[in-house]
């Protein structure tokens, strides 16, 4: 079962080792650090709502949990997580867009 899952699974792309994942993690922290310091203070509120929206990418894990045919505990968990993450994705991006639309330059 595990072998089959590994052979086709997306969660196990090339069976990443912990150190590989950790490398990706550390590099991403650095990217985040430099990108976020460049964000203008005037946009710190939209920054919070955009980061909030993209952190809902956790929906990826929820979709896999909610994906199987048979109904079991983990499918229910996955379904609830899909609902919660969707609220965040739609809510977060829309409220960000609403905010950003208000920022205007002097005419």
């Amino acid at each position: 079962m595990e072998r089959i899952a590994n052979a086709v699974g997306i969660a196990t792309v090339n069976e990443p080792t912990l150190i590989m994942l950790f490398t990706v993690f550390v590099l991403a922290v650095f990217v985040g650090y430099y990108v976020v310091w460049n964000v203008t203070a005037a946009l710190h509120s939209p920054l919070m709502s955009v980061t909030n929206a993209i952190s809902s990418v956790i929906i990826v894990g929820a979709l896999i949990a909610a994906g199987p045919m048979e109904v079991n505990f983990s499918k229910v968990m996955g379904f609830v997580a899909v609902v919660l993450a969707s609220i965040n994705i739609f809510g977060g991006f829309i409220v960000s867009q609403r905010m950003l639309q208000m920022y205007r330059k002097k005419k």
Partner: protein
Amino acid sequence: MSAELTGFAYLIAAICFILALRGLSSPETARQGNIIGICGMAIAIATTLASPEVLSYTWILAGIVIGGAIGTVIALKIHMTALPQLVAAFHSLVGLAAVFVASATLYAPDAYGIGSVGSIKTASLVEMAVGAAIGAITFTGSIVAFAKLQGLVTGAPLVFTGQHALNAVLGIAAVALVVFFAREESHLAYWGIVALALALGFLMILPIGGADMPVVISMLNSYSGWAACGIGFTLGNTLLIITGALVGSSGAILSYIMCKGMNRSFISVILGGFGADDSAVAAGGPSGDRAVRQGSAEDAAFIMKNGGKVIIVPGYGMAVAQAQHAVREMADILKAEGVDVSYAIHPVAGRMPGHMNVLLAEANVPYDEVFELEVINNAFAMADVAYVIGANDVTNPAAKTDPASPIYGMPILDVERAKTVLFVKRSMASGYAGVDNELFFRDNTMMLFGDAKKMTEEIVHALG
């Protein structure tokens, strides 16, 4: 979809998210950045749906439709003044979703290729437990933050003896349970960890006062990212790890900026209790019956109309009174009279980072008239009028002169250097730090007592 193609699609999504944040470096590119972020999310979801694990779509589509509808309605209806609590509420959902996903991986590990029930890899168990714990802390912590911001519970810090000891015991117990869980894969231990983390999140935010909310809300923003990271490690999913790390570091940087804006250490904010009633007597010098100069809306209108340069200093009081539209109206009239008007924003003004900027933008104030503290602080010396509306502690000169003051060392806006300071305030009450503001008693200060919105509207009337 092959594993390579899936991995590649996830990479594209991650790049989209980085570009979304990159866009926020200027208001001109920010809208476009947000659209790119939406594309990234669409790619991530579509890629996962096309993966071989996902066989049944009914529940998923129902979930997305239900959640999407709720989220859309909330986002379209919410008032901009309620933004801080909305963000807190959204953070709580990410935290809760992380707990659910972690639970799903525990009960159906083979779907994620991390082993089967009873023989999940130890590393995966640790990652799962950590992800769930951070998610649970984010969830209850954000709920408390939401309740405080919404005014459901008092914004005052709630402290009791032995609080820190209790938190420490709970924290140690949680770590011990994680170790046990990693060895035994006991479901009971897992739920124990979740329960402890839920309690910790609650207890951690409870003692933190309303005025420290900018730090709290940034910190929870950061936690929601680390929770996503934890789940990413469990699933071996690089997209989740990258995105979580971006969000986590973003929240951490915002927390740092907010702490610096208050000259407080992150630890002291976390330990809480700031702004408690007992600090009111801490310092600030005697105020007694010292006289203040009080003025009317007509006086204020006259002074501003005849000034060459007016700097408006908004604070949380402006948000509470919803006075931003009246302020912009006043500025429009002054500008028509040939007065130079600009706005000065302190980093911790309001209840979340950038709170004032959004409110002013909502009132159609052009963003190039709004300046940060470092940029505009020297301009006060050349200003005829500083119009302080709903701000207090961030203008208190005691931060520069009185080492005994609780706010000593905090960067402040040098409003006292303006020729006249017009201070709109409901009463002589002190700010959240419980410190008297000696600015009220200066010769060049004129107090305008009243509600921020009403007073500004009266000034508009007097100007017109």
